[in-house]
């Protein structure tokens, strides 16, 4: 067996383990938290009084206008100077949730606006409350519209979690750096890491396609122009 293959096989399990133990949970927690935040922010932008809208617009402007890596550094390395000390995983999680929340809030807002006004009126006319209308009529239809964009955010997030390596979180990329540092084989290690990210993203994409197909089942297929 060529030495590079031996190295690749030996490092595969530590990398995968770090991926399953940290990259995947960090991605899932960040995305679920970010989606909840994004939904609340979208509702505030659509329905809240102007001062609350101004606050969330400022938040979106701030997060989208600054690099994610800088945000993570501020939270983990900067906040201790202000007396707030967080462990690396928590700091990364907060950073990703804030980031996902800002980007997905705009997607969710647009998706809610895409549901025709008549659907609100039809729900009101049968006596639904605002909350029932939201839960039973608007969110299910908005979800279908939002899924492709939200999937993009999700797959970006899988890869963005590698930035947590810079905060000393021993996720997959951090482990790859450690092994590369002692074996002097960065090419093999980083290619292998890329491969595992690719596997994660592919599994998630396949999962997304299934959810999308399910959400589209009531939509007639477009016929190709004759």
């Amino acid at each position: 067996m060529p030495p590079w293959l031996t190295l690749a096989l030996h490092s595969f399990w530590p990398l995968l383990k770090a991926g399953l133990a940290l990259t995947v949970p960090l991605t899932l927690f960040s995305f679920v938290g970010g989606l909840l935040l994004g939904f609340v922010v979208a509702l505030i932008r659509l329905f809240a009084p102007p001062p609350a809208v101004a606050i969330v617009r400022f938040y979106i402007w701030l997060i989208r206008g600054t690099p994610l890596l800088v945000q993570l550094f501020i939270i983990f390395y900067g906040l201790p100077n202000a007396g707030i000390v967080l462990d690396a995983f928590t700091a990364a999680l907060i950073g990703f949730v804030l980031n996902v929340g800002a980007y997905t809030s705009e997607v969710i807002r647009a998706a809610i606006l895409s549901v025709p006004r008549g659907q609100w009126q039809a729900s009101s006319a049968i006596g639904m409350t605002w909350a029932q209308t939201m839960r039973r009529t608007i969110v299910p239809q908005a979800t279908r519209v939002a899924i492709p964009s939200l999937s993009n955010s999700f797959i970006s997030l899988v890869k963005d979690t590698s930035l947590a390596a810079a905060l000393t979180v021993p996720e997959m990329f951090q482990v790859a750096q450690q092994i590369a540092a002692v074996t002097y084989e960065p090419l093999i290690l980083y290619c292998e890491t890329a491969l595992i990210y690719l596997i994660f993203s592919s599994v998630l994409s396949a999962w997304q396609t299934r959810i999308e197909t399910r959400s589209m089942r009531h939509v007639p297929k477009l016929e190709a122009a004759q």
Partner: protein
Amino acid sequence: MISLSGIVKTYAAQPVLHGVDLALEAGSVTTLIGPSGSGKSTLLRCVNLLEVPQAGALSVAGQTLSFTPQSRPARDAILAVRRATGMIFQDFQLFAHRTVLQNVMESLLTVHRWAPPKARARALELLEKVGMQHKADAWPGELSGGQQQRVAIARAMAPSPQILLCDEPTSALDPELAGDVINVLAQLAAEGTTMLIATHDLRLAAHIAHQVVFLDAGRIVERGSPQEIFAHPSQQRTETFVATLNSPLPDWVI
């Protein structure tokens, strides 16, 4: 009986209804006719409070609500009115993500808290009545406009409302498909359903209605039986409008 009195509705300083009075006897069918922008739809929507008037009073389901420019009625009072009324829309507005059967069951399950088997039985019964039981599992997007409107009628009638409000129910349909919808509405009328219908369709306005109300620029110009309004209107404005509705075909047709 459902009654509206002194209803005033204004959009951003633009008055749409100037103090309208209307009484709807139980079991009667009333059609609202009038040019676009006359306030027909707005008046219809004031009955189930999709539009909340700035002045006047509404009596429905045994309660009377009075309106002022400053305040909306309590949320529960608005919901009570909506639960006692049913509405169908010009563009149907079936819930796109629910099947035909689920559309009809929705208010029973979510609003009236019926058990699913009971709601399902009631929904199937109504779908049969409107001739749509064979499409119970179809998606709204797979149906023609006339079929969607018949499902919408079943959805509106599911909780047995005290009145069915119809906002131009045939305007988005070709005359043939509209015929199916009109037949269903005529059947409901014959069974004693109280209805208020905003329409340009003479088949509804002249044949089904007991009372015709002609509205122009936010005021009721004239009201009476279909014969009175269409054959012997007392107001010049009514006569002019009615003439546009049944403008005769050219001579060579006959």
